[in-house]
């Protein structure tokens, strides 16, 4: 500890603390303008100048570390003069458009001038500020309002890692410029801007900050669940903000979080129920649904009724959905898109580790000594994970290993890039495991304690053929060894895997192989690091927790074993068996399933979309409960307008098991209803028993039955204290190494379907801002493949596979290796998902000019 005196007050702080931080400890406020806690100090504004006894010049408090015994003065006549004069200089040629400036009312420059009583400006100079920059999408830059604090540059470089902003030009002509190519349009530059320099174009001139009501809630675009404030006025969302302090995301947002709210306000929103495509009242529509269900049950039995739910719905809604089906309808034919991704990851991890999701909090990634990102693009799938990786490997000195088929953004920062061949994931995981053991980089004591079948682990790894693994993965042995070395020597490891694993063929086995690797790298020990399966969808963890799949009831309780207990509680006899999504698809095709309820989900975004499309046409009654029109709302017998996260209460569970309440920011549009009200209404109609819905009632029912969420305590609207499930603490010998091996044979040109960093599911394709950035899904192709196919950049092509065709423009990119195409799936009309066989994310395709 270092002791010093600030304005006569004694303070003791750890070494390397800055004077500014030390002053905060004793409640002394030193004025700042460019200081931003979450980035490295810049020392640009010089407002925080302080005097130190014995040092002639002033020192800036924000970037000067403390020293034992120093005497600091933060207020003096001389300092006041310096601060005022510097402010006066900053104001030279600052425009007087405060009344129409977007930052008016929340401008740090205004506030600092006010605090320092800067009320005149005597310096003058020629105005050499560059013109306003208007050609960037979504963000306007007004250089003459800029105070060159570089907060935007630093947040972009240090926190987000996009590194697209930079200071251009010299002297007073200097301004913040941008490399548009690398911009992620996350809007963090706008949020941190202390003045009106960086402006959100969608928000510009729309509202005054002080007139907006801030509603604290959770962003559900992905599973990161950043804590946000909906800025609301008159039933409309004008912008989304997030505080640096007290939020798990430190005020950072991604492009969808910051700009992607447009779909909520979309004029296309479904506002009234439709029956046979005609507007109808809720009574008529729900009556129609009830009648149809009863008719189908009457004719074909409850087994002919099926439903798919959604990770866009809340915990309570998913709970009610499965209860509606199992208890009120008597069908266990329920599933979701998790079948083709998250559920595989879950099963893989469960089988090896007994783990149902992430093993640790997202924040714990930030202090891991090594991070392995395996078959994931966190920037796209869960941006908050990307920021934590940046923290671990760039703000701190952790090692980053990126294993991916293509160059995702994080590859830029990787110490090791394991560019494996498609389909070789298991072999890659196995060979890393083998090398860890060979090099003595595993903790034998830990393995002995944790693993139940250590002999199997050893013998399986001993059988891993290095030469074969090198051939399969296409990665040189030296590079594999180097990666193993980094993983093995780190005392804490974060292991993150994503859609390339879980959505692929043999996804469950791949997840198991990664779980094996997690054991060997010690990922599951300690406070830092951890194992993180990623799924891009917002409340995927909540959906799984609520047991919306036929194999399990809420709390991952095996269905057959626990159905009687639940039936008892629900006053119903639960059906036996149950179809999963594949079964439902087949059932529709063969006439076994006659009624399908789609709750906020669109199977046309599932693999083999055209098969789904054909099957959906066959059912007697298709109910689509959604927020925006799509091909299926046109096909539906009944359309029920649901609501977005901004219009509902209820709770959601993040990918790291934080359970948080949503707060209703605006009323549901038109006649739309919160989705849980719809389920409850149907439940009441079918069972003739009214169902009360309240967050606390449902969650206590959940916890009573499943044991999950037992420790949850929402305190009012308190968004600073997330409720957590118990940390993962496996019992001794509870890990079961699972011997999986082999690669998938890969032939021909392969297309990989995945997520864009600018789009989230299909809803963001209704957001004007996201469409301005990416209006269509481009097919990334290696220039060599493009040349073979005879196509040029931006040319339209047709892709064909054994299951369907898709169209789109190509984008020539070195990010994809020769032989692999990558296309985002969000634009269902493009048909990318039609190219994929059932349940897969990769397919052999042929390419031709369209």
């Amino acid at each position: 500890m270092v002791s010093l005196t600030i304005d006569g007050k004694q303070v003791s702080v750890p070494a390397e603390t800055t004077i500014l931080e030390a002053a905060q400890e004793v409640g002394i406020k030193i004025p700042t303008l460019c200081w931003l806690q979450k980035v490295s100090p810049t020392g640009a504004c010089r407002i925080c100048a302080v005097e130190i006894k014995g040092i002639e010049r002033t020192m800036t408090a924000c970037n000067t570390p403390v020293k034992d015994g120093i005497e600091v003065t933060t207020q003096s006549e001389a300092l006041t003069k310096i601060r005022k004069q510097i402010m006066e200089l900053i104001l030279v040629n600052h425009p007087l458009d405060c009344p129409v400036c977007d930052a008016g009312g929340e401008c740090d420059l205004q506030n600092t001038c006010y605090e320092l009583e800067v009320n005149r400006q005597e310096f003058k100079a020629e105005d050499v500020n560059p013109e306003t920059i208007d050609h960037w999408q979504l963000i306007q830059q007004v250089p003459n309002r800029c105070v060159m604090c570089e907060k935007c540059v630093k947040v972009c470089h240090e926190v987000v890692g996009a590194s697209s902003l930079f200071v251009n030009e010299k002297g007073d002509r200097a301004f913040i410029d941008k490399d548009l190519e690398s911009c992620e349009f996350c809007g963090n530059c706008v949020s941190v801007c202390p003045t009106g320099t960086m402006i959100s174009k969608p928000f510009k001139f729309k509202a005054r900050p002080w007139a907006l009501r801030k509603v604290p809630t959770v962003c559900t675009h992905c599973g990161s669940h950043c804590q946000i404030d909906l800025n609301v006025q008159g039933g409309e969302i004008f912008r989304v903000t997030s505080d640096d302090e007290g939020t798990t995301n430190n005020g950072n947002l991604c492009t969808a979080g910051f700009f992607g709210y447009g779909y909520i306000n979309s004029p296309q929103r479904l506002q009234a129920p439709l029956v046979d495509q005609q507007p109808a009242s809720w009574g008529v529509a729900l009556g129609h649904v009830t009648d149809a269900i009863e008719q189908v049950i009457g004719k074909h039995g409850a087994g002919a009724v099926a439903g798919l739910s959604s990770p866009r719905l809340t915990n309570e809604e998913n709970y009610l959905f499965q209860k509606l089906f199992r208890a009120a309808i008597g069908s266990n034919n329920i599933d979701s898109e998790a079948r083709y991704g998250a559920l595989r990851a879950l099963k893989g991890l469960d089988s090896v580790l007994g783990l149902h999701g992430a093993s640790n909090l997202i924040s714990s990634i930030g202090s891991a000594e090594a991070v392995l990102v395996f078959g994931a693009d966190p920037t796209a799938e869960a941006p908050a994970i990307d920021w934590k990786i940046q923290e671990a490997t760039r703000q701190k000195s952790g090692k980053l290993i990126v294993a991916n088929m293509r160059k995702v953004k994080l590859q830029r920062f990787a110490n090791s890039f394991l560019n494996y061949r498609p389909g070789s994931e298991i072999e890659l995981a196995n060979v890393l495991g083998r090398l860890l053991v060979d090099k003595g980089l595993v903790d034998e004591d830990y393995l002995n304690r944790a693993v139940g079948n250590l002999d199997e682990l050893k013998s399986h790894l001993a059988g891993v053929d290095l030469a074969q693994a090198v051939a399969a993965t296409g990665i040189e042995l030296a590079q594999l060894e180097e990666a193993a070395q980094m993983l093995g020597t780190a005392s804490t490891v974060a292991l993150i895997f994503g859609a390339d694993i879980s959505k692929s063929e043999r996804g469950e086995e791949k997840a198991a192989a990664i779980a094996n690797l997690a054991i060997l790298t010690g990922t599951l020990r300690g406070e830092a690091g951890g194992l993180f399966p990623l799924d891009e969808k917002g409340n995927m963890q909540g959906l799984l927790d609520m047991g919306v799949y036929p194999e399990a009831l809420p709390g991952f309780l095996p269905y057959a074993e626990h159905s009687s207990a639940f039936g008892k509680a629900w006053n119903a006899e639960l059906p036996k068996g149950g179809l999963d999504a594949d079964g439902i698809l087949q059932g529709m095709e063969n006439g076994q399933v006659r009624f399908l309820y789609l709750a906020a989900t669109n199977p046309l975004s599932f693999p083999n979309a055209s098969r789904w499309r054909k099957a959906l046409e066959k059912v007697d009654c298709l109910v689509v409960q959604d927020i925006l029109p799509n091909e299926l709302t046109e096909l539906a017998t009944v359309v029920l307008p649901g609501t977005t996260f901004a219009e509902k209460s209820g709770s959601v569970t993040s990918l790291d098991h934080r359970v948080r309440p949503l707060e209703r920011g605006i009323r549901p549009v038109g006649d739309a209803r919160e989705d849980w009200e719809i389920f409850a209404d149907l439940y009441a109609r079918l069972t003739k028993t009214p169902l009360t819905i309240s967050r606390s009632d449902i969650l206590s029912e959940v916890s009573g039955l499943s044991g999950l969420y037992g420790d949850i305590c929402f305190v009012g609207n308190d968004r600073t204290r997330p409720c957590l499930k118990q940390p993962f603490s496996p019992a001794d010998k509870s890990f079961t190494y699972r011997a999986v091996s082999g690669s998938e044979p890969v032939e021909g040109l392969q297309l990989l379907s995945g997520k864009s960093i600018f789009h989230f599911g299909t809803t963001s394709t209704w957001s004007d801002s996201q469409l301005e950035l990416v209006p269509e899904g481009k097919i990334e192709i290696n220039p060599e493949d493009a040349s073979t196919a005879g196509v040029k950049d931006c040319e339209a092509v047709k892709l064909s596979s054994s299951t369907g065709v898709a169209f789109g423009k190509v984008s020539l990119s070195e990010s994809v290796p020769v032989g692999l195409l990558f296309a985002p799936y969000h634009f269902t009309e493009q048909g990318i998902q039609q190219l994929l066989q059932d349940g897969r994310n990769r397919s052999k395709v042929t390419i031709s000019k369209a």
Partner: protein
Amino acid sequence: MGQLVFSSWGREIIDNRQGGDGTSEIVQKKLPVTFDGERSMVAFMGWDGIIVADPEVDVVAMAAEYAKRVQEDYCCAKCSPGKKGTRVLQDTLARILNGEGEEKDLAEIEALADLLQNCKCTLCMTSAVPVLDTVKYFREDYLAYIRGERRPRPAEYKVKLTAPCQDKCPAHIDIPAYIEAIKDYRYDEALSVIRESMPLPAVCGRVCPHPCESACRRKNVDESINIMVLKRTASDYEWQHQQTPPMQPKPRKGKSVAIVGAGPAGLTTAYYLALEGYPVTIYEALPEGFGGGMIAVGIPAYRMPRHILQRDIDIICSMGVEIIYDTKVGEDISLMELKQKHDAVLLAPGAHKSKPMGVEGEKEGYSGFLAGGIEFLRDAYMGRPTGMGKRVCVVGGGNTAIDCVRVALREGAKDSILLYRRTRKEMPADVWEVDGADEEGVQFEFLVLPKKIIVDDNRQVTGVECVRMELGEPDDSGRRRPQPVEGSEFVVECDTLIPAIGQDPDLSFITEDTGIEITRWNTVVTKFVPQKNLVGRDLNDEMGNPLTRILLTDMDGVFASGDAEIGPLTVVACVGNAHRAAKVIQRYFEEGEAYLTDDDFHEDILSHLGVYDKDEKVSWLDAIGRFDQHEIHGRERASAGNYNEVELGFSDQEAIKEAERCLRCYRVSMIAV
């Protein structure tokens, strides 16, 4: 400069405007009379004041121009007083110059100069110093402008950005810029900055004697910044993150250059000319895998791991440089042939021949008496038999001698003994190298002079007879001259004796018919621009060579660089010298004339003047001391066959912390001619 009119340099006011002949050492000795051998230097304006050597100089106009250049060309805009303050300063001075000034503007200039003391770095801060001096001491001239009595006359100014460290670095790397980039977590940018002046960053991030650190202003607060290891950090970051260097050579051009020797000088010239698009062929005497010249065969792998050196070489080759190995110029191909095949030739053969020691028996060919330190290091590096036994004596006190004793341990010597005629304090070797040898178990015999090699009947060395020395009066180098103590002869037993007292270039390939003159120190003579100071003495560099050399030899189209031109010095000196050679050759190719630019002259003038002032009182809080890199300790690091790197560099976080200590001591120099 000519006779002094006025000087405020170093805060010492000498004013001869009303008569008088006051002068200062700087004007007398440090600065040349001319800027470029022809045009007179009439005024100098910089971080420490102004010097006027011609009464006709318009000091007001010069100050206005100075402020303008600082603001428009150099101010980084990264702090408010700097960005805005220098703009206001520039405009205020411009107003005065236009006859639109008022007397109160002078007060404003004074206030601004005060305010600029709060800047983030010293660029804008020190730029206020000379401007303020002009207001203070040339007030009448200002008032004449303000009264409308004067109009500016045309004048020519030369401006240059410098910093004490950058000036002292023989390669003139923009050190503050790359340190700032590291501070900002931008290692790639840092490396790009380094590469603008230094194509061997991994090498000079490891084995540079870092003269820059001896001119670091942070020394005046506590200790110098660890500039070298920060360079290593930037360079290692690239390969440790598997990044591809971003440089792209310009389209191929017609004229080609041949380079003799793939050492630091040859590689540097090759790199910069290749980037410009010129085809470069390097002829290297050693076989493939041993490129790098003295960096490879003179610096052991525990200091400079071979694969890391090879990466720097590979990057240079990827710019379009061809290295033809196993080809000794003068034996396998003649210099004249090279001259015929190429449009220009650069001689950069280095200095690879050990100097004789002058002991009795050294020419007898005794077994166990090795040719020399540099040959020993080369053989060891190349895995050839060295002829070394178990008890090894190395004679010398320089870095090569230290490398030899440390390599001897790694080659399996049981005893490795250094014989040096002065004391540890006088050793020219870097202190950290001597300490390293000490830690590894090297034995030192100080104040001894070998006289005679002792052999047995088989002509095998068994020892060396030495005489004890004592230190007498200081010699030219300022070190006390060692003198033998009569009757103190004794024998140091050994089976191997290695002389390592210095090396010479082997210039036997430069035949007489070329007409290229060789100095008596066995270096190549190159053309230069004579620069004299006011008292008529030639200005020389630290090796005694003329200060401002064009690097062209007596033969048209043949240039020389590196140790063979400068005299045996350092990697970084070779790099700086060879970078200039590349520029000169480019001008030779493009304009048909090998010449130096104003920037070259300015650079040499500043380096002779010295930008660093060890007596400057630097006011700063010394909260965080210098951070040294991690290192493997213990004798095991020098066990037989263990050439693992001893020094381990910084973690990124340590590098950032060290970079935060940098005071960013930029300065702007302006010369009126």
